Each structure stands twice: as C-alpha cells, then as structure tokens.
C-alpha cells in the first residue's frame, strides 16, 4: 500500500530503511553466535542511469580541467615519479651497469640533454638525477651495487649536495622495495595516462592547487612558497625546463620569487649557525668520499660537475657555500677531477631564466660543451687505471 500523497519510491524507502530506531544489524548486535550471511540493501534508485549520468559529469569536469591546464601552457608529458626513477635505476641491473650514469640534482636533470650526449659519446646515459635532492644517497646506493661498473657524472648543486637535503630521497627506497603491483602501476600510467593528459602532473593535483591559493597569512607563520612546475620529462627521464618559464614573464617572475623566498628566508634549524653548517658540509663530503672510494675500487670512473647558476642564486651560493670551503674540499678529499663552470669559458654565458636552470636551447649547447670535457676525464682515469694494472704486472 502506498499512503496518500507519498511517492512510491519514498514510501518504499521509509518502509525498508526508516523503521523507527532501525539500523541494519551488524556483528556487534549478535554476540557469541555464528554470524549469518550479511544482508546488503540496494536503495531503490535507477542506478544504471545514475552511474551513466555520473560518468558523463566526470567526463565533462575532466575535460574542463584538462582544457584549463592546456590553456595554462601544459602539455602531456611523463611523470617524474619514483616509478620512473626506479625504471631507469633497474637498467643497471639489466645489463647496462657498464654504461654512463648521471646523478645530481635538478641542474643535471634539466641541463644535461641525453640526445646531445648520445650524439657525442655514442651512448645514451642513464638519468638518475633527482630534483631538490643531494646525490650523495644515490652515490651510496650505486657504491653498494656491484652491477654498476661504468662511468658516473655527479652533479654538484652546492645548496643540496653539501646540505644533504633529499626532497626525493624516498625514490631509492622505492626502487628497492617496489613490488609487482607498483611496477605494473607505473607501466600502465606511462602508457595509458601520461602521454595523453596534461593535468596528470603532481603540480596540478587538486589539493596542491587549492592549498597554494592566496590564503590569508597566519600570524607568526612564514609564507610558504612551494616550487612550481619547472620541467618537462621524456620517457627515459630526459628533461628540460618548461617552456612557460622561458616565455611567460609573469611565470618566470613567480619562479624567481620562489627562489628568493627560499634564499632569503631563515636557514633550517640544523643549519642555522656557521658551526652547524660546517659540520653538515663535512659530513656530506665524508659520505661522498667513502662512496666514491668504493666505486673507484670497483673501477667506476667518476667526475664531479658544477653546472652554472646566475643571479640571486649564484650570489647566495658564493656567500653561504663558497667554493673554497665546499667544492675544492670535495675534490681534494676524493682525489677526483671536477668540471666547474667558472673554470671553462665554453660552460659560461648561457641563459638561465630563473637563475638555476638553462633554457631548453642552451641546455643542448651546454651538453655539447660539457660532454667532451667529461669524456676526457673518464678516459684519463681509464688510461691511469690501465697504466696501474700494467705496472702491477
């Protein structure tokens, strides 16, 4: 029976679900007995139409979201995920351990172009640099891997290398514990989503976008300016600076403000006195020295590279982490050669839109200039190793 004036759907709902005091029984209502097969109610609704309607809404919103980001200047690209890093790292296990590996921070990631390197050196290096991250943990990881016997270019961005800061440090752990599910997830993402969707970038994630709007500043709390999207990545982590940083003056100004905010802010608590800073720098050099010694004992050829920086970033590095107290000590302690951009005219004079990374065109030119220098150092170490072996015989 349907009461007068009540729609059938509502009536059915009341009858089935709104008996006074009624809540579906659960195991908590039946102590000390064998629990029966659960009952699951299906609310009387046109669920097929609802699901298809929801799918239409989902597609419309997603299309609008994708359009918004494309209009912003984004294009589909590959995610700089831990899975992508692990995929490249596994190339060493899969027989490419005798090749060239690039480690470092974002400067090696953005500035060293794999195609140009390959054209000159005859092999495409494995790109393992991680943005915002000291390469020292990666050095230690490679030192512990007997499969790696090749050539190693180590990028030195002073602020990261000598502080040990590791924004992406979990990538190494991810590589070691990555299960089949995570590997297949990365495989699917790389083939089904990343090449087609511009919005599918961590920088455009909904919470990230909402939380970095212009919210009122809480008294006593320093305004946080997280780093914005700066790069575009290829399938094997070949990376260059995002075109918007080069071509959009407002966006370039924003990226500079982010750096200034970081450079002019108070140092983190573990680096807030000269003594603490010196201790941290010494620790990082010690760690690097040990890792490099292990690598060299296995025959790995290693070269340090200090990519260029300009403007406020360069001024900060010279002031807080001067070359004599960091780079020179590193080379002296490890006994290794280094390629510092200050020492080579061909590594100078490039355009760095936000003071830290080269434009895409200049990254190509820089790689063309850098590769022969690095190759020369690798070959010199190989000749020295051969000479030592011959002398020992």
């Amino acid at each position, binding site marked *: 029976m349907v009461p007068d004036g009540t729609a059938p759907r509502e009536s059915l709902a009341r009858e089935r679900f709104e008996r006074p005091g009624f809540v579906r029984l659960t195991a*908590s209502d039946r102590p000390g007995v064998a629990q029966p097969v659960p009952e699951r109610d*299906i609310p009387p*609704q046109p669920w097929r139409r609802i699901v298809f309607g*929801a799918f239409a*809404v989902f597609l419309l919103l997603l299309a609008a979201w994708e359009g918004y980001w494309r209009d912003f200047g984004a294009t589909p690209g590959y995610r700089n995920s831990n899975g992508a890093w692990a995929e490249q790292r596994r190339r060493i296990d899969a027989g490419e351990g005798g090749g060239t590996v690039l480690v470092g921070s974002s400067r090696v990631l953005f500035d060293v172009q794999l195609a140009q390197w390959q054209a000159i050196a005859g092999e495409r290096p494995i790109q393992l640099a991680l943005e915002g991250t000291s390469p020292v943990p990666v050095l230690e990881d490679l030192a512990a891997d007997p499969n790696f016997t090749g050539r190693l270019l180590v990028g030195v961005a002073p602020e990261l290398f000598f502080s040990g800061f590791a924004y992406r440090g979990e990538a190494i752990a991810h590589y070691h514990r990555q299960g089949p*599910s995570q590997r297949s997830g990365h495989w699917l993402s790389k083939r089904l989503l990343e090449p087609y969707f511009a919005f599918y970038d961590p920088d455009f994630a909904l919470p990230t976008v909402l939380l970095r709007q212009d*919210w009122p500043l809480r008294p*006593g709390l320093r305004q946080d300016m997280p780093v914005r999207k700066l790069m575009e990545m290829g399938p094997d982590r070949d990376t260059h600076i995002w075109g918007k940083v080069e071509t959009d003056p407002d966006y370039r100004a924003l990226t500079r403000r982010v750096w200034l905010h970081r450079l002019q802010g108070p140092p983190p608590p573990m680096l807030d006195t000269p003594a603490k800073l010196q201790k941290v720098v010494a620790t990082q050099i010690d760690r690097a020295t040990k890792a490099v010694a292990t690598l060299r004992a296995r025959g790995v050829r290693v070269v340090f590279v200090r990519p260029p920086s300009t403007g406020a970033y360069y001024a900060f590095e010279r002031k807080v982490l001067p070359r004599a107290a960091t780079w020179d000590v590193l080379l002296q302690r490890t006994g290794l050669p280094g390629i510092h951009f200050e020492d080579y005219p061909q590594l100078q004079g490039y355009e760095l839109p936000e003071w830290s990374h080269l434009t895409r065109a200049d990254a190509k030119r820089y790689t063309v200039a850098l590769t022969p220098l690095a190759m020369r150092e690798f070959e010199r170490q190989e000749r020295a190793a051969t000479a030592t072996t011959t002398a020992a015989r």
Partner: protein
Amino acid sequence: MVFNSLTFVVFFACVLVLHRLPLGWTTKKINLLIASYLFYAAWNPPFVVLLWVSTVVDWWAAKKLVNAQKPASRHAWMLLSVVVNLGMLGYFKYGGFLTANFAALLASLGVAWQPPKLDIVLPVGISFYTFATLSYTLDIYLRRAKPANNALDYALFVTFFPHLVAGPIMRPTELVPQFAQPRRASGEQLYFGLALMTLGLFQKVVLADGFLGPAAEDVYSPMAGAPGALDAWMGTLAFSGQIFCDFAGYSTTAIGAAMCLGFAMPDNFRFPYAAVGFSDFWRRWHITLSAWLRDYLYIPLGGNRHGAARTYFALLATMLLGGLWHGASWTFVVWGGLHGLYLAVERALRTRFAGYAPGPLAVFGLGLLTYALVNITWVFFRAEGFGQAWTVLRGMFGGNPGAAPILHTAQLTTVALIVTGIVIAHWLMRRRTLEAMLAQRHPVPLAACMGVMAFAVAATQGSGNAFIYFQF
C-alpha cells in the same frame, strides 16, 4: 595491490569480465581464487605461501576437530590452529618488538644482550587473514558452525580479495555459504557496487590522502616543533578524519567490489563519530574487529557473567590486546588501554546512574565528550613514540605556550571544514544507514555527486598510498 591504483582498475575490470562470462560456477570460483592470489602476490609473491599455510592448517585442523571423538583431541586440533596462526602473526609482527623488549628487560637487570637484527618484513594483511582463519576453527570448536563442504570454498573464503588484506574481518559463516550457489551481480548490484567504490575511493584518495593526511603529518612530523593548542588539536582532528576516511573508505570500496561480483560483505563502520559513549563507539568503529575480539577473547575471558571484577579484567585485557593487534608498539597498547579504561568507567557510571535518561542536549554533549576523548586516544595511535605523544597532548591542553605555528591558514580551513563535515554527517546519520539516505534523494543530485567525487579522485592524482590498516 591497493584499491587506489591503476593496477587494481585493470585487475578488477578483468575479474568482472571473467565473472560474467558464461562459465561453470566451479570455474568461476577457481578464477576468483587465482585472482585473489594474484591480488596478494602483487605486493610480495613469496608471502602467498603464508596464506597457503594458514589455509591448509585450518582446513585440516577443522576437519580433524569435527571427527575427533575425545574432548582432548578436539582441544588439541583447536590449539594447533591457534598456535600456527598466532605463531605466524607473532613472528612476523611482534618478533622485533619482543626481542627488543626482552633486551631492555635484561638490560634493566644488568645483563647486556644485543638482540640479533631480525629485519622482518611484515606480510601485508596478516592480522586480518589469520583472524579470519582462526574464526573458522574456533566456530567449529565452539560448535557454532559446520566445516565448509569443500576445500575450494574454504580457500576462497580465506583469500577472497575484497576482504583479504584489511577486512572487514569476515567469519566463515558469513561468506562460505555464499559460494554454495552460483552468484552473479544483478544490474542494480553492479551499479550500486560501483557507486560504493567511488564513495570509498573519494574518502581515501581525496579526503584522507589529499587533505587530511598532510596536515596530520605536518603536526606529527619529527621535524615539527612542539605544537600550540590550535595546531595540536587541528593535527589530531585531521588524523581522526584521516584514519576514518582511510579505513572506512577501504571497507566501503571492499563492500562495493564484492557487490559488483554478487557477494555481500558486512558493515565495518556505522558513523562512529556520532557515538555517545564508548560501548556505542565500538559498535560503530571497526565493527568486525571489535565483534571478533568480543566473541573470541572477551567472552572466553569471562565476559560479564562472572561478577564485576572479572568483567573489568576481561574488558581491559581485551582492549589492551586489541591495541597490540594494531601494531607492535607500546603506544598502541596505551591506545587500547585508554579505550579499556573509558569502557570500564562508562560501565561503572551506567551501573551507578542506571535510571538516568539524558535529554537531546545531554546526548549531544555526551557525544561531543566521546569524540573529544577518542581524539585523545588518537594521539597515542598517531605519535611515533611517547615523547611525541606527550608533546602533542601538552600542546592540546595549552602546555606549550609561545609555540611557533605549524599549519597554514589553508590547512586549518580545509581540515576544519572536512572534519566538521564528517562529524555533522555522522550525527545526521547516526540512526540510519547510507542506503536509507540514498533511497530518499533525487537521482540527479546523486549522479552529480558521484560524478564530482570521481572527478575529485582523478584530479587529486593519488599516488597509490597504501591504506593505513595494511600495516596492522
């Protein structure tokens, strides 16, 4: 694999298609069994062996138990099941904890002993499936249930992927009978199951991982300083929302996934933040665990049938062990102990004021008090150790004056909005079911909500974070 992953999307689509093909029922069950093993092996393939051990031991123990003539023999087969299951759980989950505490005990007695570095990897979901298989043997031992008719049905009960790694903790009597007859989801079940999965993933990916988790992490980070009152409360409230959305989101997704295949799974949550009192809270939070502990621990310990002292002992012992079930750490024991204490005090008050019937305002006040006290316990659940727990608690009660602010306005606002929304929703739903509410809505806003939730899941781009309860 986790529900919030691309791998699961593809896996589940394949399982759905296979399950709807015109194949024999036994073939479909074998398909589900193989799929469930794949689901588990996707984390760490060797650990499938543990599932097999648990399955085989309990299958044979129950079989022998039923045929045993002597009580001692029945008892022995039951004990075998208990020892093997708890032995596996003890080794993998508590091995390091026990040796570390043993070493500390020896050190307090002046004996220096360095425990060997065990480096044990915790098999995901081991606490859940060992409890599920234990309930099979125990129900048969207690003569509450009969053994499964065939090994395939039993193995599928243990392994069925929707409940395998994080519950709801199913009893054999809830699931095994569902395998007796061919099951295929009706159109309504399939579509409503998809709606539930969307809701569950929205809770997990958007609310728990996207907004609440990072705020809780900022306050509970070892790098964060001592929080002031606002940060300590907001960080803890964020965690209260995060753990609910994470775990209830998992349960809802699991129930939806099972429904898409034509199976029914029990409720695991019933709007717990609308609980008035702690016995009410435990009838609403992780229902299948609290009911399991009640049936197989609290009642065997004496329950409430042997006088007040024995009741309080059983209550506290059950909650302390329930706390330890969550993790091999003394902070979890304190979390469980606090809940045991709350339950004991509530019991004493109910006895003392047996005739008291609170009015609506008092009910609301008592509900808020319950929620506040639950949040105190979450501090121990979330903190890395007692040091951090005390620091946060001190902050919550104004004991860190002059503390530097931690959370940004954006975080404070989103946490306040989401947590308030959760609590209000729980209060509005406290005497109803989700289905009752959905039945009364117009289809158009339902479709719009579901579409928006699905979009939010995609736009949040969850990074496949594991569910919190996987570690338990």
